[in-house]
């Protein structure tokens, strides 16, 4: 898996990037991903089930995420749902995408298109 080059997958579509971001902290099922993205972006990014599962398929194929056997506490668990987990490779792709975006922002800042309060931190974990 480590032999793969994250850069080959860039740029990510915003939806895919958001899905990876939402899986960074926790393993989530489909609807939880939609909710997390919706909440984090203040409702600006609304995923539908069609878009979500198309992206999930592609991410599974590219081995950026995998089906997780991790289960939340029994009372919250729902047998019918599949949970997804980000892989190490997925983290690397997401980080590469974040750096790519940061670089873009830096360039825009240099051109004084926007002003940034904090200089870009080049690592996103």
């Amino acid at each position, binding site marked *: 898996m480590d032999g793969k080059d994250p850069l080959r997958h860039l740029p990510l579509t915003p939806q895919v990037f958001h899905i990876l971001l939402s899986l960074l902290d926790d393993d989530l*099922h489909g609807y939880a991903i939609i909710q997390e993205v919706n909440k984090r972006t203040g409702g600006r990014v609304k995923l*539908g089930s069609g878009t979500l599962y198309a992206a999930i398929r592609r991410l599974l194929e590219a081995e950026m995420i995998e089906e997780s056997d991790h289960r939340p506490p029994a009372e919250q668990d729902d047998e019918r*749902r599949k949970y997804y987990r980000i892989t190490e490779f997925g983290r690397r792709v997401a980080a590469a995408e974040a750096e790519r975006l940061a670089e873009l922002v830096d360039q825009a800042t240099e051109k004084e298109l926007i002003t940034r309060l904090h200089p870009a931190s080049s690592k996103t974990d």
Partner: protein
Amino acid sequence: MERFYSLLLWLYPRDLRRRFAGDMRRTFRDLLERERDRGAAALLALALREAWQIFADALGERLRRVSRGRIGPFLESLARDVRLAARGLKAKPGLTAVVVLTLALAVGANTSVFSVVHAVLLQPLPFPQPEQLVTIWEDRTARGGSAKEWMEWPVLQELKQRTDVLAAAGVYELRTGALNLNGPVSGKSASNPAQASQEAAGSQVSTIQAAVSGQVGSGPLQVVAADVSAGFLEALSLNPLMGRWFLDPTEDRPGAPNLVLLSEELWKTSFASRTDIVGRKISLDNREATVIGVLPPVPIPDLQEADLWMNLRARQRSYPLGHFTLRALGRLKPGITLQSASQQLNEALAGAAQKDGRLGGIAIRLLPLTQELQPQTVRQGLMLMLLAAGCLLLAGCANIAGLLLGGVLSRRPEMALRSALGGGRARLLRQVVTENLLLALLGGAGGWTVAWLSGSLLLELAPPGLLPPQVSGTSALQANWPHLHPSAALFALALSIMAGLLFGILPALHLSRWPASALSSSRKALARPGHPRLRAALVAGQVSLALLLLVASGLLVRSFSRLIQVDLGFDPRGRVAFHLDTPDQAQAQRLLQELPAALRHEPAIRQAALVAPLPLGGSDTDVDVAALPPSQQAEFPQKLRHGPVWYRRVSGGYFQAMGIPLLAGRALDEADLRLQRRVAVVSQETAHFFWPGQSPLGRRLGTGELTVEVVGVAGGVRHNGLRQSPRPEIYVPATMLPDGAIDVVVHSSLTPQDVHKLLREHLSELAPSTALSPPVSLQDLAQDALLLHRFLTVLTSAFAVLALLCALLGIASALTSQVQGRRGELGLRLALGARRRHLFTGVLARGLTLTAAGMLLGWALSVLLSEVVAAKLGGVLFRTTATDEMTYGLVSLLLAAVSLAASLIPAWQASRTDPLQTLRE
């Protein structure tokens, strides 16, 4: 809806379906759950979005699989199919043209309606988290009032203090009058902007002058102001372009400094987009106000007109209980539902009522802002349009399927030959499907063009305010007619592909089944009409759909004709109104007492009078009014029946000027105004409300601190649109509550412009500081109320006519092909001595039978649908039931006549059959 979703999932390849379908369904159910509270429009939007996503994703996935490894051959054979199909269509230009035209009209109608629905119902409101926004109303039914009453200031304060469900809440009040921006400025204003900016460089407090331009006549610039409280803009989360909101409570109390937020437009047009505007002072009605910011357009219909926004309570107004002039809006805290919020608010108010009895009997009603911005009639009307357009599309598809089945005739030998030469069934089927899809896409492109062309027509017909306002920062919705929205294009595309499959499936199956052995049969056998029963069923289907649409349009026409017969309560003909605003008190007093009489002396003017607020003018003033027993004077009695009543300040001659009948007693006259008598004329609704069955003359009414004696009774007036019955109303002398903001109504035979000129002359003598608005014709105001209905009626009728044309074409073509297929039989019958007359009537009878079957089906459908229509769409109809016999009768007659006309030519052809020739064939 879940079943629909499950069906859609079948579009995916099997392995994917096995792996993901369960999970996807589960997720969809959660999404549905989330949207359920937001009403039917949100659900529809979700369904459309999901359907489109899955369709596109599954199609993409399948294409990817197909292309994997054999993209070259696939494309090649596709190109060959398309070439062949195009050649096939070119060979039958007549059929192709009819099919494409039919489809273009049907898809065009659907796309147009969808565009409007998309713009009006499916676009989210341009606020963050719009689902948390609610309008807050008082429900005063327990006190004999209405269930949806505007808010009293103290009630809202109690709610805000006692509960924790509102993240922010505020009120606004529309001023009936306009303000004079930069009127005769007293003091230290600069005379031109350049000078102002120079002075301003030294000091922040210089008053700046607006560049006054583009107004009617000369004089100060009239601007429309809205008063808002602190909390209102926060609730909307509407950030100023520059500057800030009003602060609570320092700037939201009587005696606070006058502050103003400018609208973006006023800032641009009158203040030359000056970036240093914040902190400057401007002159409004001779009073200074400090600009604290610039607001982007506020996308709420009432407030779009506002040029500037002022802090509500700064004008020394306390808004006590009994003043119903404020409209309240709030934002619920995240996670709080409408039900729990309204329950908590009502409990809080009940608690407050135990301390203060005056708050008893009031309930709080929360309505989602979405609902408020999309009135029921609009929602229902548009849903009806969608239904009607859908029916038209079905009728069009049935028609095309019939035509193509007829066209199958000529294709049989070709297909049989290709089959004999080794064309597999799948290959032939694909060829036919390609041909149909090509037709469909041509039709879709035509439909798109139709929608595009009809855009300006629709915009013209659409009532103002139907399409949502343009919002800066989001897509310019209204500037570019909404059908330019990409989703409408997708809609047209999806619709035409669907239609292509729908109308193509029958002919395709039929053709591809034709075996090679058919080659051996004679030409005659090959030329027999295909599936007469199927065609008959299609025709009957078309007739039933045409009947449905005709009934819908008939019901709307009946409602419309009843709506225009509604008596407004006054006569709008020949009446023009102008809004006057006089900041100077002395001049205002003179104007109130002298202007009507001065105008009446003009020979061309029949009658003139003053009134505030203007009927149908969009704003009305409610007060709590109580009937007083003769002994009581100013005491405000709790126990007596009372409720909100509209009041109007009028001058003498008002009832004559408006053509409102005086039913008893006397009208208000000049002396009442001059002497400021405490008298009033009440409407008959008021009389009935307070003193049912008795004469109200000589009785007393209390309106807050004032009491008046009733001297006359006037007819009721429908101020809230034609659908609502008149509400109780009282008229008091305009001088009783002197205010320079008032409307003058003039009844004359002059043009509005001439009246305007005359008025300006008189005003320059009586009250030169008055700002005068452009003329408003009361006839126009009255007709505005009809516009939505006219829009629905015209659209539905247009669809109905198209569906009727489809049915006509369908009947004619089915019968013609039948007659042609039966030429041999007809010839034989003639040769055996049958009369031509009998052949003629035979075909006519066949046509009528088809129509009758279709009408029976249509009746059954419409009876089934009428219950749904009555329940869901009843608001669209007016004094007309969904089962109006007259409409059904007329529509059936019309259909019968049309089918008779459609059968005439085939019948004539049948009767002209030449027996010798047919027997020789």
